Structures are given as C-alpha cells and as structure tokens.
C-alpha cells in the first residue's frame, strides 16, 4: 500500500531540480546564454549556431556539475564571468570557452555577479557572503558577511555596493573594503530577494517576500516610500522616465511613480511574473512564468499585443538583441519576438548542441 502510495505521490509531484534562469547577454556578435541546465554557451547572434559550450560535452567536462545558472553572465574584455548553483564563479575565455579560473564561494550562487568598468568583480552567495574578486586572477580582494543568505545580484555604484538578504536586510557597503556604510541596515518584514536597482541618483529600489516594494535613500537607508503587492516581488524592476515597473508573483506588473510610489496602473498577466520587464519598441514587454508575453503601453498599461504564447516556463529576464526580444525559457529553449507586434520571429528555433 505504502509503496503504491509512494509511487502515486512520486508520479504526481513535480520536484523542481535547479535548472537556472540566467538571462542571455549579447556582446560583439555573440550571445552568451545558458541553453541547457548547468551549461553556458556562446552563440552566433545572427544564426544562433553554437560557438562553444561550457562545461564541454566531453568526459572531462561532464564531471563538472554546475547544477544551474541563475545570474546573467558578465562580459569582460575577453572573459565571461558567471556564478553557478554549485557555488563556483567561473571565468571563461570568451573566444573558445576554456576555463581561466574558478572561485569557490562555499555555498550556492543564485543572485549573480556585478562587473564594474574599473575591473572589479562582486559576487554574492547564499552563505551570506559578498566577495570582491580580481577578475584577472580570481583571487579574493575583500569579503563581507551580510548575516544571512543573499539570493540577488549586488548593485554597484561609484560610492557603494548594495546587497539585500533573505533576512530582510539591505546594506550599503564600501566598494573597496566592503565595510558597512550605513549605521544600520534597512530591515524589511521578510526576505528581500529582488536585485536592488537604482532610480535616479539617490534611490534604491528593492522588494521581497513580505509582498512589499521599497524605495530607500541610497545615502542613509531611510525608507522613502513603500508599495504593497499581492504576492512576492522577485523580478528585477525596470525604471524608465520616472516610472518604476515592478513585476510581482501575483501575476501583475505594477507601474509606480518613482518619486512617490503611487500606483499609475497595474497589468494582470495570467501567471506569476518573475522575469524583469523590458522596454523595447516603445512598449513594456512582459512575460509571465507560463511563457505568455504581452506588449504594454507604458502610459496606460493597456496591452498593445499579446499574449504571444511560448508554451514554456519562463523565469529569466528577456533582453534586446537588435530589433528582437530574446528570451531563454526553462530548459534552454531560445525565442525571438518582434516587440512591435509580438510576432514570434522566424529564428525562434530551439538551439541545442
């Protein structure tokens, strides 16, 4: 009986193994995307042919189990950086995908990395640590402990590094020493899990599990305003011309006044929205978890087109590639959509090696 029940239960339950939701990045005619769980690939941006895959599909490469890649890769001069769920930061030669170095954070990497123009690489880990690494050698230059797990990418400005954590804290750290800059961190009601985003010069936006979206003073950490959604805020907000577009797992995208936090409009997608909204072709492009895409008028929130149905789970952030919106669905399938009318472009082939 128990065995039968176990089998029924096992059959019914869909156990989510980490597959990753890293969004693609385009640079110099190459798209870097995780087209397979736990593998990073370089694709020709014109015909989507695969240039290289890491780890390579060899006996040696198969020994590396990255498990999943959640943060978008960072593109340096001739090196690609990304963090994986196995806890390692990988630096790869952009031309052939060979590994230059790896750095072990000691725990999962979910948030991702931040690479600055003056060649500093910041990494966050679910063990609550923030690392400053030398991008050339992979050596650790500084480290700070946030106290609890960090599930988001750091926001780096000229004067501070902002990191939020699952105990609901947002901290501002010195970019060189990673020492705390504020007297005390900002504390939300529950875990903060969105990537912190800058609005204007002096406002940091962040949201999380307490279903609240916060705007904070970047200099002091004092709260400027907050907005309550219907579920968790997890997707990275988009800021454009004084409006914040904040996706929520309740299926809505909220357009808020960046100065006051007042609601301008809310668009309800059929499924939860984790992917960041994207401004493309004069529209705000939104895609929900079930792969239903919409093009919204930024002023009114009315759908100009949609849904364009991808029939795939989408949790990654879409990016603009030329005149198309490029989306990586769960499992690594790639889709290209015309932002003006939502048409799936003829190149929406699934690229697999």
């Amino acid at each position, binding site marked *: *009986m*128990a*065995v039968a*029940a*176990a*089998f*029924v*239960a*096992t059959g*019914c*339950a869909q*156990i*989510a*193994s*980490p*597959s990753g*939701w890293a969004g693609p990045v385009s640079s110099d005619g190459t798209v870097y995307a995780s087209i397979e769980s736990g593998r990073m690939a370089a694709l020709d941006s014109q015909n989507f042919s695969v240039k290289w895959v890491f780890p390579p599909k060899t006996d040696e490469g198969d020994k590396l189990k990255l498990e*999943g890649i*959640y943060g978008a890769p960072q593109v340096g001069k001739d090196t690609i950086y990304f963090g994986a*769920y196995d806890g390692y930061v990988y630096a790869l030669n952009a031309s052939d995908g060979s590994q230059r170095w790896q750095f072990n954070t000691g725990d999962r990497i*979910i948030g991702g990395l931040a690479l600055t123009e003056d060649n500093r690489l910041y990494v966050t880990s679910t063990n609550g640590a923030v690392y400053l690494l030398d991008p050339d050698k992979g050596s650790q230059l500084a480290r700070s402990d946030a106290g609890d*797990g960090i*599930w988001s990418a750091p926001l780096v400005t000229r004067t501070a590094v902002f990191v939020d954590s*699952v105990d*609901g804290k947002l901290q501002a750290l010195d970019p060189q020493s990673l020492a705390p800059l504020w007297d005390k961190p900002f504390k939300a*009601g*529950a*875990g903060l899990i969105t990537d912190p985003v800058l609005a204007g010069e002096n406002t940091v936006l962040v949201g999380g*599990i*307490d*279903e609240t979206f916060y705007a904070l003073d970047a200099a002091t950490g004092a709260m400027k305003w907050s907005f309550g959604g219907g*579920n*968790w805020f*997890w997707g990275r907000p988009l800021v454009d011309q004084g409006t914040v577009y904040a996706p929520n*797992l309740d299926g809505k995208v909220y357009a808020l006044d960046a100065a006051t936090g007042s609601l301008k409009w809310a668009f309800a997608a059929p499924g*939860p929205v*984790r992917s960041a909204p994207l401004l493309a072709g004069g529209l705000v492009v939104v895609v929900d*978890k079930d792969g239903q895409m919409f093009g919204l008028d930024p002023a009114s929130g009315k759908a100009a087109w949609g849904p364009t149905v991808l029939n795939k789970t989408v*949790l990654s952030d879409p990016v603009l590639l030329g005149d198309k919106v490029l989306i990586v669905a*769960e499992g690594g399938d790639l889709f290209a959509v015309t932002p003006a009318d939502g048409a799936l472009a003829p190149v929406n082939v699934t690229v697999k090696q």
Partner: protein
Amino acid sequence: MSAGAVTTPRRGNFTPFAIVLALAVGVFVLLAAGRDPWNDLFINPLINALILLDKVVLGQFGLAILMFTLILRVATIPFTIRQLESTRAMQTVQPQIQELQKKYKDPKRRQEEMIKLYRENSINPLGCAMPLMIQMVVFIALYRALVFTVGGSPESLIGLSQRLYPFSFLQTSVPLNQHFLWLDLGAKDTTFILPLVVGLSTYVQQKMTMTPNASAQMQQQQQMMTWMMPMMLVFLTLNLPSGVGVYWVASNVFSLFVSYYVYGRKAFTWRQLLLPGGPPAPAPAAKKPAADEEDAPSPKAKARGESAPETPAGTEPQARDRHGKRRGKRKNRR
C-alpha cells in the same frame, strides 16, 4: 456465535465515513466556487502548517518535519489502529475462509457463508479499506506538501509563493533553513545514510508487523513485500529531497510503536526480525460445540488481545494479552 460482538454497536466505523462525507461536501463546494479542492483542502494547509511549525521550532526545518509527522500520525491513530485490527482480524479467520472455499463450490453459497462468518466474528471486510484510504490520502498530501516546501531549488520557491498564506509570521520563515544533521533537506542525500536508514526502518516495521497466514502463497507474498518495500523506498529516497526521507523514518518509527500497541510484544523478537518468513500460521479452526462458540472471543477481540476463558483442546491458544504475556499457558499445559 459471539452474541456480544453482534450486538455491540459499531459506532467507530461511522467516523471514517463521516470524514469522507464531510470532505466530499467540501470538494463539491470548492469545485462550485471554481477552486482546486485538492490544493485548497489538503496541500496548502499542510504546507502552511509545516512552515508554522518551522517557526515554532526556531527555524529548524528538520525538527519541524519530525513534529509534523508526529502530530499527523497521532491525529490519524484511530484509523491506523482500526486498520491494523481489521487486518489482523481478517487474517485470523483466514483458515475458516479457506475451509469455506474448499467446502462450497457454488460461489453464491460460498459468498453467503463468508458473509455469515464475517458477521459471526464481527468483521467488516471493508473495515481496513476506509482507514487505509484516509491514510493514503493524508500520506500523498503530506508527501506533496513536503516536496513543495523542501523543494530545494529557487524554482520551487516560486511554487511555494503561490501557496503560502499572506501572514508575516509565515513569510519570515522563507526561505527555510534546510540544514538538518548532515542533511540538506532540499537535496538528495549523497552519503546514502538516509536511504539506508529509511530502508532499514521500513524493513523492521514490515518484519515486526508480519501477521500469520495459513496460506503458503500469502506467506510468500508477504515475505516478498518485506523485501521489496524497503528496496523501493531506498530507491525513492535516493531520488527525492532528504526531507521526505526524514518523514519516512519518523513515520516508520511511529508505526513500530503503534504496531507494538496493537500486536503486542510477541511481534517484537529477534527471531521474528532475523529469520526468513513470518510467525507461524494459526492452526485451522477446529469445529467447536455451539456452547463454546458463545464464549469464544471474536477474532477481532483476539486481535485486541482479549483471551478466551477456556481454550478448547486442539486449537492454537490465543491467550496472550496485548503485550504477549503467556497468560494461562501453564494452566493449559496441565
């Protein structure tokens, strides 16, 4: 015939039906409201209860699973005991059933005689089916709730967000601390310790609760299940988040205690554990005079450990109490 058994009102049998009826009404109401009853009635309350317990035990999710298992098993203990007793009673009358099968070739007559036998012994043939069904539903719901809660990947948290009630004291527990002993509750146990413990505890639980069967075929089937079930659970635990394995171990240990309560100490011997096969089958029931039948306890009563005032010669003395003490054995020898 056991007059007492027949006249005893079997009020307890109504409880599972009442629960099923109440659930059926709930399901229809939710379906009418366009909701998903399976999730609304079972999975989501269990998930939130698990997370609430995590809060109670100060963020130790492994302890929360143990507490949760204990509470659920205690809450369903009347069904568990009823099922064990019904199973035991059914197996006690197996020899008589086999005799009836040999004796009556006409299926209709055989059926009538079997119903008569059940009635005489105060056995409801469906008595073990309903509690079993309820336990199965609870088991599957709990299992799914665990999988959602200890999903072990950021993707699983998206699913959890749709099921978590919007109370701040629940939200502050997420994401759950998944480290417990040597385990990452959201990941497979790569040390293989937990799957082995699951297999071992299942084996012991199976072995200790094996009931005597007159039929060699049934004995063989039971013997096969004693091995197959632990092996299957080992395989499942190898492929599931460790939190589910922790539940299984806790549940098995609890089952051992319940079995001890129902079957008594005689089922808990090293001989029973180590030797192949189950306990000896009961001897076929001897034809008894009508007067003896009046005094003899029903098999259901035997399953509860009640002994007969007199044991007729030539029959297996069922004279041990719940904990296996050999009451009256010496007297019988004399």
